[in-house]
């Protein structure tokens, strides 16, 4: 495998990792008004993602950074073509981050409610914006021979952006519900599982439709099989939820995303930004890539750095593996580590 292909795979991995991890953060936030009717429930829901969301968000920064580092032609085509959706993503992520921090900084109920709503709104905006950007990118943008968008600010935003937005949102909401059923105990666990069980089949449809469309455009037999795996994983996730095996359901629902993303990236390869004006203007990994020297440097750095990162991130998940409940845990107070 040449370095450009390797880095295409690395970028695909980073985006998938981001959607997989930040997906449940978005989902939990989106479910706050649905499953968190009482302050104690909302508090509990936020505690499940509290130690994790910031580290998960770095997957996005690294994914965008890797696109810039390995394929500046992709970075420089994609971002300005979808200028406004990306600005909305930034807006959503900014207000979400400060809301996490500020929610607890002032102890009135109205204050708490306001920032909890901001967490939900910011997460919804960010998830939809990222979905729109990915959907529009994999299904085509109106770019000319120089990789510049033509047709004005909204020319890149059509049905493909809408499909991507709905796909990421719907996946994330159910992902968040499954995550809550895995990470909490008590009434919330039951309610989250019931929610996931009801909505999982429907929520998978836009994601499968998106992956299917990219496959039909430019897929291979392999991406066809991957798509079937994604569809099958939906059934497995649903069946495991029914019998209350949350851990297995979480894995299966994650596999839906991984297989669907693999379908999308696999089918798109080697094109990174297809042009809706003329296929000759498609940006490919060869057009967009940096020099082999820079890719080699990056490969060494990532080859050493990424396993370390994965190691310590996995370890934090292990540290915070315990199920959370709304009831006080006096047997194990926070101060027993002396």
């Amino acid at each position, binding site marked *: 495998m040449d370095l450009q292909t390797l880095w295409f795979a690395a970028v695909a991995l980073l985006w998938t990792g981001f959607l997989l991890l930040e997906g449940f953060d978005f989902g939990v936030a989106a479910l706050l008004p649905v499953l968190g009717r009482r302050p104690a429930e909302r*508090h509990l829901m936020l505690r499940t993602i509290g130690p994790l969301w910031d580290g998960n968000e770095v997957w996005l920064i690294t994914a965008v950074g890797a696109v810039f580092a*390995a394929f500046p032609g992709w970075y420089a085509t994609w971002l300005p073509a979808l200028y406004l959706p*990306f600005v909305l993503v930034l*807006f959503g992520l*900014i207000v979400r981050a400060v809301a996490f921090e500020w929610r607890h*900084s002032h102890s009135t109920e109205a204050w708490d409610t306001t920032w909890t709503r901001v967490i939900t709104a910011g997460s919804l905006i960010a998830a939809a914006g990222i979905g729109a950007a990915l959907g529009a990118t994999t299904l085509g943008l109106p770019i000319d021979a120089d990789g510049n968008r033509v047709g004005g600010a909204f020319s890149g935003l059509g049905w493909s952006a809408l499909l991507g937005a709905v796909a990421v949102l719907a996946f994330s909401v159910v992902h968040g519900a499954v995550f809550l059923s895995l990470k909490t105990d008590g009434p919330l666990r039951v309610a989250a599982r019931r929610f996931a069980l009801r909505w999982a089949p429907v929520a998978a449809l836009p994601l499968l439709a998106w992956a299917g469309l990219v496959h039909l455009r430019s897929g291979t037999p392999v991406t066809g099989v991957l798509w079937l795996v994604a569809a099958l994983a939906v059934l497995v996730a649903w069946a495991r939820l029914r019998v209350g095996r949350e851990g297995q359901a979480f894995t299966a629902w994650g596999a839906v995303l991984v297989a669907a993303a693999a379908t999308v990236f696999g089918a798109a390869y080697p094109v990174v930004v297809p042009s809706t004006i003329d296929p000759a203007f498609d940006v490919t990994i060869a057009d967009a890539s940096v020099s082999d*020297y820079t890719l080699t440097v990056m490969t060494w750095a990532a080859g050493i750095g990424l396993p370390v990162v994965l190691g310590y991130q996995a370890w*934090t998940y292990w540290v915070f593996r315990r199920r959370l409940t709304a009831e006080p845990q006096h047997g194990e107070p926070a101060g027993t580590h002396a």
Partner: protein
Amino acid sequence: MDVLDVARWQFGITTVYHFLMVPLTIGLGVLVAVMHTMWVRSGKPEWLRMTRFWGRIYLINFVLGVATGLVQEFQFGLAWSEYSRFVGDVFGSLLALEALLAFFLESTFLGLWIFGWGRIPKRLHLAALWAAVVGSIVSAYFIIAANSWMQHPVGVEVDDATGRPVQVDFLAVLTNNTALAAFSHAIVAALVVAGGLLVGIGLWHLRRRELAGQPTTDVDHAVWRRSVRLGGWVSLVAFVLVALTGDWQGKLMYEQQPLKMSSAEALCETEAPAPFSVFAWSKLGSNECDDVHSITIPGLVSFLAHGDFSSAVPGVNQLQEEYAAVYGETYPDDPSRFGALAGEEIDYTPLLAVSYWSFRLMIGMGGVSAGVAAYALWATRRGRVPTSRIGVYGSLLAVAAPFVANATGWVFTEMGRQPFVVHPNPDVPVGEQTWFFTAQAVSPGVTAAEVWTSLSLLTLVYGALAVIELWLITRFVRRGVTTGDHAPDHPAPTPGTPTEGTPGSREDDDVLQFAY
């Protein structure tokens, strides 16, 4: 204003704003880690309370830094796509490495530190904080290496086909002398920021307690006293290092970007020895060097540039001619690449008033911080508690000084490089140099309306966030250490004890109070 101007304002506003958070994150991170270490080693309660109090401010600030830092990663592509294409072979990898090697470390271990009180072993918990702090410092290194490559491009050759720089020596990019100087300057400047905060807030609390007749023997008194002493010494020592690293950086800049430095002095003609300007005034709105009049100290700029009091330092007028001879009198007449500036004359002199005053504000505000630190150490010597209203409130006000110094330092660095976004490296022969004008860096497909939209949205949001952030920090600072922050090693309330209205356990609430 066309796209270029709006995009430049956007970059300036978002970056300066972001950099209000960054030095405090770096500096306070180090100091909180020191406090936490002292607690783990000595077990003294004041160190724990200091860790919790200053740690809380560190976190409030950290999150806003993370949130505003996101914009940076995206806006090179959003508004500066031609720049991104041009520098892609070098610049993008530094950003990616920053994310991979620094941001993950920072965010993951900070999450572990915040939620790890009582959950993981004490020393491991401390190590988590140090890991996060190291992450911040590593991230500063990568982003400054990226910026320094724009100031002084090294390790590249120009590709004949595309005209773009191609990386040939990654190690040279990482060990760019510009980066080493700028990094050390920025890190010690961050410590001045954190030290100033400890001094200002600590003195205010000491005085308030003294006037209220509170004892000087309890833990809280020790908290504020130690904060002032620690902050004062850090600030003072860091200021000396700021001056030394700044001198190093300045001498490099006289070689690498002489126009930036001569503009900072409004030094019009080449002079030997060259004087330092203390105060200057000019015809309003003129960027002509000859319209500027100065009060000067003879020979000082020769010393700043070359380390002696007699060497010649080139003047703005001469440099402008030299640059025009090498890099062109006018921009190429190509509106698709140079927009409204196509075919226009190139002004190689950065805005004189900005260069001149940002340079002086940077130095002056740094000096104010050092003065306040010295005052605080003197006023609290041998257990004294200062009650001087002017001294204490002056120190509180002076918390802002190192922030201003950091911001104006970057304004000077960035605007002093204009009209280039990638400044040519004079160490290599002209034929092998790479450079890029700011005028050609902007995204060609993006409309002014789009950039106006994002500029207004971000400015409004940033403004609102600043108001809330300052209000929250002020409230938290006023409350002090005793209320709203109790030590995690206090005995847990016995089951069934009514706690303050919330159904959750008090310990958990405290962890969260600290966390969020």
